[in-house]
C-alpha cells in the first residue's frame, strides 16, 4: 500500500498522467466560465485576463513537464518533445490546417453547404460580373500597390543612405507601419473628404481648388480609378517596411565594390542598376513576395474607406460579404481558396529558401 502511494510507482504515475490534463482542462474551463459571465469593471477584467492568459499557459507546460519528468528516462525522452511542441501542433492543426482542408471541401458544396455542386462555385467566381471585378481589383492592388511600395522603398532606402538625416527620415516613412489599417483609413478618408461647394476641408480637394480644378469625390465617383486612391494608402503604409529591409541590405554591399566602380568612372545611376540591384536581388524578391501576400489579403482599408461599394470590392471583403451577409458558404469558401491558390507560388518559394 505504501509502495502504491509513492509518487514514482506505476499506478500513481498513471493516475497523475490522467489528473494533470483533466485538472488543467477543468480549471481553465471554470476560469473561462467566470470571464464569460462576470460583470466586472473593464479595467479590472483586463488585468485579470492578462494574468490568466499569461500564467495559465506557463502552468500548463509546467504541470505537464512535472509529470513527464517522473517517467523512466526512455519514456521521458520519447514524450517530452511532444509536450514542448504539442500545444503549437494542436492549435495549428485545429485552427489552421484542418480549416484549410474543410474550406476546400466547402468550396465544392452549395450556399448552405448541403449539396455537392462540383466546380460550380469556381465557375461563378470567374464569370459572375461582380466577382470578376473583385478579382480585377485584387490584381490592381497587387500590380500597383505591391510594385510601387517596393519601388518607393528601394528609392527611399538609396536616398536615405546618402543623405545627412537618415535616421529621422527613415522614422517618418516607417511610422505608418505602426498604425492600424483602420486608423489609416480614417486618416485618408479625411484627406479625400469631399463636400460640394468651394469650402473644402479635405486636403486633396483643397489642393485641387487652389490650382483651379474641380473638387472630386475621389473614392466613390471615379470608377475604376477610385481603386488607385485606396491603393495609395497601402503604398503609404508598406513603403516603410520595404525601405527598412532594403536599407539594411544596401548597407551590406561591400564598399570596395562601390569604390572600384567609381574609380572605373561609373556614375551613381549605373552603380545602382549594375551593382546594388544585383547584389540585393534576393532581398528584393523576399520583400516583394511578403508585400504581395499582404496585398492579396487586403481587407481593412477597403472595408473602412468604401465598404466595398463603388466597385472597389476585393477578394477578402467579398469573402466577408458572401459569408456574413449573404450566408453563401459556397462562394465564401471558394473566394478563400482562390486566395490560397494565389499564394501557392509564394509557399513554394518559401520552402525552397528553407531548403537552402
Amino acid at each position, binding site marked *: 500500500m505504501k509502495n502504491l502511494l509513492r509518487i514514482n510507482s506505476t499506478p500513481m504515475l498513471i493516475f497523475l498522467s490522467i489528473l494533470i490534463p483533466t485538472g488543467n482542462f477543468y480549471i481553465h474551463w471554470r476560469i473561462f466560465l467566470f470571464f464569460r459571465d462576470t460583470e466586472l469593471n473593464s479595467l479590472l477584467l483586463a488585468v485579470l485576463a492578462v494574468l490568466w492568459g*499569461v500564467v495559465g499557459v506557463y502552468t500548463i507546460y509546467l504541470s505537464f513537464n512535472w509529470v513527464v519528468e517522473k517517467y523512466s528516462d526512455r519514456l521521458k525522452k520519447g514524450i517530452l518533445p511532444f509536450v514542448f*511542441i504539442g500545444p503549437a501542433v494542436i*492549435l495549428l492543426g485545429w485552427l489552421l490546417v484542418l480549416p484549410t482542408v474543410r474550406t476546400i471541401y466547402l468550396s465544392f458544396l452549395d450556399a448552405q453547404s448541403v449539396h455537392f455542386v462540383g466546380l460550380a462555385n469556381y465557375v461563378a467566381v470567374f464569370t459572375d460580373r461582380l466577382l470578376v471585378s473583385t478579382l480585377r481589383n485584387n490584381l490592381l492592388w497587387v500590380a500597383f500597390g505591391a510594385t510601387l511600395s517596393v519601388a518607393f522603398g528601394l528609392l527611399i532606402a538609396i536616398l536615405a543612405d546618402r543623405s545627412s538625416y537618415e535616421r529621422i527620415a527613415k522614422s517618418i*516613412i516607417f511610422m505608418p507601419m505602426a498604425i492600424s489599417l483602420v486608423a489609416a483609413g480614417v486618416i485618408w478618408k479625411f484627406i479625400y*473628404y469631399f463636400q460640394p461647394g468651394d469650402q473644402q476641408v479635405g486636403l486633396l480637394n483643397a489642393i485641387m481648388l487652389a490650382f483651379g480644378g474641380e473638387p472630386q469625390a475621389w473614392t466613390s465617383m471615379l470608377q475604376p480609378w477610385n481603386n488607385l486612391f485606396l491603393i495609395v494608402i497601402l503604398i503609404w503604409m508598406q513603403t516603410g517596411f520595404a525601405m527598412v529591409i532594403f536599407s539594411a541590405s544596401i548597407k551590406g554591399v561591400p564598399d570596395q565594390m562601390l569604390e572600384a566602380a567609381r574609380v572605373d568612372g561609373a556614375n551613381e545611376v549605373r552603380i545602382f542598376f549594375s551593382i546594388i540591384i544585383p547584389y540585393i536581388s534576393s532581398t528584393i524578391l523576399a520583400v516583394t513576395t511578403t508585400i504581395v501576400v499582404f496585398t492579396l489579403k487586403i481587407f481593412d482599408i477597403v472595408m473602412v474607406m468604401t465598404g466595398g461599394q463603388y466597385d472597389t470590392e476585393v477578394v477578402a471583403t467579398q469573402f466577408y460579404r458572401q459569408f*456574413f451577409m449573404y450566408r453563401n458558404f459556397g462562394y465564401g*469558401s471558394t473566394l478563400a481558396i482562390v486566395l490560397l491558390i494565389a499564394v501557392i507560388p509564394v509557399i513554394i518559394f518559401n520552402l525552397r529558401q528553407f531548403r537552402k
Partner: protein
Amino acid sequence: MKKKEKKRSKWLVNTVLGIISIIWLIPTLGLFISSFRPATDILQTGWWTIFPHRAWETTVELELSKDVDLRQPIEIDGTSYTDEELRKGIKINDQRLIWENRRARIVNVQDKVWNMNTDFTLENYMSVLTGKEYSIMQPDGSVRVEKGSDLSQAFWNTVAVSIPGTIIPILIASFAAYAFAWMNFPGRRVMFVIIIALLVVPLQVALIPVLKDYTALGLNGSLLGIWLAHTAFGLPLITYFMYNYISQLPRDIFESAYIDGASNFSIFSRLVLPLSVPALASISIFQFLWVWNDYLVALVFIGSQPDVQVLSMKIADLVGSRGSDWHLLTSAAFISMLMPLTVFFLLQKYFVKGLLGGSIKG
C-alpha cells in the same frame, strides 16, 4: 570641381528626401491637428488654416433692400452684379463681395487679411473617452445634441486581447522552436516544413470552419476564443523566427547544463529564454502591433457583442455610422494610434530587428 559636384548631389538628395518625408508625414499630422480642433471648425475650415495664411474676413455687412430682384442685376455702390457672381464672391480691387444671407439680402464686404485659426480644445478627446454629451451648431442655425462614443471600455478590451494575444503565442512558439532545434523526435522535419508552409496561408481560409467550431463550443465573443485565434495565426511566423534564433545558440551551454543534470524544461526557462531576450523583444513588438491593430479577426470572432469590442471595431463603426463627425473620428483614431506609436518610437530598434529577422535570415 568634383567636390562641388558631390556637394550639389548631396543637396539634391537631401531635398528630395525632405519632400518625400513631408508628404509622408502630412496625413498623420493633419489627423493629429484636427483632433484638437472644435467640432464646428473641423467642418468649416481645413486643418492647415491653423498656420498663418491669408483669408477673406468680413469688414462690413451691407443690407440691401428686401425687394431686390435676384434675377436682375443687383446694384451695390453704383456697380451692378449678378446673383451668380455674388454667390461665388466677386473681387473688386482688394475687396470681395459675397452673399452672407441671400434671403435676407445681406452682402459681406471682405478684406484679405493674415489669419490663423488657433482654437484648440480637448473636448473631442473628452467626449470620445467618457461618452460626454455635446452640442453642435448646424449650418441652418439649429443646435443638435449628441452623445459621444465611450472608448474607454474598448481600450481596456483591446489591452485584454493584445497582451495575452502576444505572450501566449510567443511562449508556445518558443517551446516548439526549442524542441525543433535541440530535441530529437520522429516527424520533426515534416512538421517543421508544414509550419513554414503555413507562413503564407491566408487566414481567411480558416475563418469559416473555425467560426463554426467556436459557435459549437461557445467560444464566440470570448477572450479565450480570440486569444487562441491570434495564437494560431501568429504561430507559424513566431516559431520560424524563434527557431532561427534558438538554433543558433552555442551548443556547449546546453551540453554542460545537461551534464549538470538540468532538465530540458529548466534549460529552456533558465537558459534559453533569458538568452533569447533580444529576439523575444523584437517578435513581441511585431505580434503586439499586429494584434492591437487587427480588425478582421476581431470582426469575425468577437462579432456584435458590444462589451467585448476592441478599438479597431469601434472606430470602423464610427466611420460607418458617423462618417462626417470628424471631431469624433479624428480623436478616436488618434487614441487607437497612441499605443502602437508609443511602442514604435520607444522600441523602434527592436521593431526593425524583428522585421529583418523575419525576411532576411541572420
